[in-house]
């Protein structure tokens, strides 16, 4: 689970999959996402084996340590170098395939036990050079809970493992709820029946094995230096010296991947056509970088999408060099449900009704960049269709993409404002991201609110400050957050709805429930849905919750982003639909 990070001139940073900038804006009212570049998958491969690919990036990975990695761009590297228990083939964003594991996880009927069998012959890269065992997976999960590693999702998905709290408190040296009866079996014992989501989360890099005898000394440092001394199990490794010290990574400059000499293709579904992959970071001007890719050779984009002029040009002239993929995320304008005037449900509905979401989408590029969101589970996610698909859940206040002032006024009247307009005189603190597309979106959002007489006081700060000092800090008392969004971690709808709308997840720091929605019926439904086992049942349960959340109008959902990726003409690019980015293990050169 992670918030969408918006591309400012700087960061960008890290906005990866959802960083698709605006492209002009002739909006149509079409609800279906426009598809220009075909999404290449494994089946379309025609490339050769060998060669060097250059990945052009604007900024750095979030963490080079696979135990802390949490962004699409980082995953792009991590899934080429590490083998978690499960991972996603290029053409399936929903169902993970066994990677280090031999078969699908065995979740007990009560959801309290997850058992995984692993392959016996997957070896670590030098200098470890031995086969990975279940104990290595156990250590990988344990180290994710170390503050020196700082994994951002371990607690959310693996916090139910018995013994985690004692381990975190320093009362136990290992997590007692993870059993390794033999070298090829690992069992996760849970305090409640959340095995369904734990099984799904095993496709994240946290489950990639880490050899304790080698890594512990690095993890003992503050912060852990394992990332700069990591070993690989995937087809590639970050270039390193004989002792394992990484030489191919210079923060903000480059990541050089070379073949892992201990990788055995017979144990892996990855193809690994390329010999070397060079990630070149620091290309802040994404227009220049995009043009370099399009006119160059053997290059693909990394953590940015082509900006508006380039995107327009590609669509018109070389659409084959463009791939658009649903990102599995959405953007919305969060309304603080704990503070006036948005503690009034009818006022919130009025805001949703008046919002011109097409104008919002136009700030990012219009229909090309994805359909207008009508609820919160995005396309290509379990529960999307069950929650109403592209059409929506049926609520009238999200029926009009361009907004409906008359309907909004009706809701305002119901909310206690007889004129249909807000009569309060106070300024409403609105904190957005400065610069670029995000700022445009914030300004358009402010204009929508003014239609009903609200007086938003828009304060623009850097994206990190927007999250960590304002919108994610409830005591900052921000009333409107126009630049927030959420991206799946994997295709389970819980990863979209639970962190963002469960009242029990409201915390003082790094709060992701930006509207601070705290409705007992929804919280309790989420508690129950979290324990449901089986994909279909889970999808239905979370789709029902999506409808409940939407009915509460805690935020204005306005786009289900598509990710735009570009490549040079001689690159046989393969998109990994799960990650919304080029799959380095399947991409090749002509």
């Amino acid at each position, binding site marked *: 689970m992670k918030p969408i990070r918006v591309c400012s001139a700087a*960061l960008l940073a890290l906005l990866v999959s959802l960083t698709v900038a605006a492209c002009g804006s002739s909006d149509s009212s079409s609800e279906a996402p426009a598809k220009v570049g075909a999404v290449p998958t494994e089946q379309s491969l025609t490339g050769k084996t060998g060669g060097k690919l250059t990945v052009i990036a604007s900024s750095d990975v979030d963490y080079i340590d696979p135990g802390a990695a949490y962004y699409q761009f980082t995953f792009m590297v991590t899934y080429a170098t590490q083998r978690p228990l499960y991972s996603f083939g290029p053409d399936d964003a929903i169902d993970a395939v066994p990677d280090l594991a031999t078969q699908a996880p065995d979740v007990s009927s009560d959801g309290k036990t997850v058992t995984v069998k692993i392959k016996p012959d997957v070896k670590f890269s030098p200098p470890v050079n031995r086969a990975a065992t279940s104990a290595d997976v156990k250590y990988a999960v344990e180290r994710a809970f170390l503050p020196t590693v700082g994994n951002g999702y371990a607690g959310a998905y693996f*916090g139910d493992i018995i013994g985690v709290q004692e381990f975190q408190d320093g009362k136990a040296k290992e997590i007692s709820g993870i059993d390794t009866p033999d070298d090829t079996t690992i069992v996760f014992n849970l305090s409640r029946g959340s095995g369904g989501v734990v099984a799904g989360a095993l496709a994240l890099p946290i489950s990639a094995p880490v050899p304790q005898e080698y890594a512990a000394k690095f993890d003992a440092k503050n*912060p852990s*230096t394992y990332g700069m001394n990591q070993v690989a199990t995937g087809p590639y490794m970050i270039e390193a010296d004989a002792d394992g010290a990484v030489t191919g990574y210079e923060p903000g400059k480059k990541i050089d991947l070379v073949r892992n000499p201990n990788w055995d293709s017979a144990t892996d579904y990855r193809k690994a056509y390329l010999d070397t992959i060079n990630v070149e970071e620091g290309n802040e001007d994404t227009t220049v970088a995009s*043009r*370099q890719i399009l006119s160059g050779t053997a290059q693909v984009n990394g953590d940015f999408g082509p900006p508006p002029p380039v995107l327009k040009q590609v669509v018109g002239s070389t659409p084959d060099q463009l791939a658009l993929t649903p990102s599995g995320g959405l953007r919305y304008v969060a309304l603080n449900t704990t503070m006036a005037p948005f503690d009034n449900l009818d006022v919130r509905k009025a805001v949703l009704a008046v919002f011109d979401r097409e104008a919002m989408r136009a700030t990012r590029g219009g229909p090309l960049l994805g359909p207008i969101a009508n609820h919160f589970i995005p396309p290509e996610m379990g529960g999307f269709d069950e929650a109403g698909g592209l059409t929506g859940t049926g609520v009238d206040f999200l029926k009009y993409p361009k907004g409906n002032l008359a309907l909004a006024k009706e809701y305002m009247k119901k909310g206690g404002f007889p004129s249909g307009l807000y009569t309060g005189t106070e300024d409403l603190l609105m904190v957005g991201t400065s610069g670029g597309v995000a700022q445009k979106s914030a300004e358009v959002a402010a204009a929508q609110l003014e239609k009903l007489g609200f007086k938003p006081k828009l304060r623009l700060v*850097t994206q990190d400050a927007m999250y*960590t000092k304002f919108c994610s800090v409830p005591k900052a008392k921000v009333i409107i957050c126009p630049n927030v969004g959420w991206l799946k971690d994997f295709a389970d709808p819980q990863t979209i709805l639970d962190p963002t709308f469960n009242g029990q997840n409201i915390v*003082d720091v790094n709060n992701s429930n930006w509207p601070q929605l705290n409705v007992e019926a929804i919280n309790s439904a989420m508690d129950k849905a979290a324990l449901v086992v089986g994909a279909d049942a889970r999808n239905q349960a979370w789709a029902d919750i999506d409808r409940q959340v939407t009915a509460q109008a805690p935020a204005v959902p306005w786009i289900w982003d598509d990710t735009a990726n570009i490549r040079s003409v001689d690159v046989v690019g393969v998109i990994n639909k799960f990650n919304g980015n080029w799959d380095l293990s399947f991409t090749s050169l002509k």
Partner: protein
Amino acid sequence: MIRYILRRLLWVVFLLFAVSLITFVIFYLLPSADPAALRAGRQPNPALVESIRHQLGLDQPWYVQYGRYMKNLVFHFDFGFSYQNGVPVRQLIFSRLPASISLAAGAAVLWLVVGIGVGVIAAVRPRTKLDRASMGLALVGISAPVYWLGLVALYLFSADIGLIPILPGANSYVPLSEDPAAWFTSLIMPWCVLAVSFAAFYSRLLRGNLTEVLSEDYIRTARAKGLSERRVVFRHGLRSAITPIVTIFGLDLGILLGGAILTETVFNIPGIGRLSYASIVRSDLPVIQGTVLLGAFFIVFANLLVDIFYAFLDPRVRYQ
């Protein structure tokens, strides 16, 4: 002279302390991001955030943090670790310093040669077409923002996206130690772009100074003694007129050694400037501190060198 230098060195130390303190205070006063929250990822356990805050020492009062930082810096030359990626700041800075030095030094040579050359020519040929044309171009050079100029240069001359593809473009920097020839060619365009505004400014400044000096009595005396015009201009006129240039040059070079943010960004040169920019955006205080201190060091040290050089350049300073 030695006492003077020692006194100035003490001032350097004091200034660096002051700069470090101000940077620290600014970081706490401005609404920058929360490093612990950033380090903890997007959906961390609150206890984890607090644990990281404690481990980074961010739960201490700012003056305690500052004291610890300065202690490590003074006694161990340790700038701390980047909050963002856990890499020692010293390592980050020293890995990027060569690129910034390469950029600044090459551009400095270029702008000195061009700036002084054009300034002298314009001064000895006042109110001619050559003078007016060169000063007009200089005005354009001063007015053109480096970022814009860099992009124009890329779209015109870079080998990958340029209309006249003759020079390596963005993202082509190669360290001198790896390939001297590639290093040189990769920096031609950045050097030119960075040098334009400096050369323009220096030429205008020198032209004004030199024109004024050439009308002094002692110049007339020199001419009356029968010295050649070249000797009059370069030996007597330029030596006097160039002293303000030396002052500015010292400061400019010091600033650029601390990072030419815009040029490094446009051409993706992995120098100190880009590191500073990225660290500011990510609220990475140890890196911000390190780069600011480095920049301050270069500036005050360059200033010191300039003052010492003055004594040799201008006898009046020595006598005082």
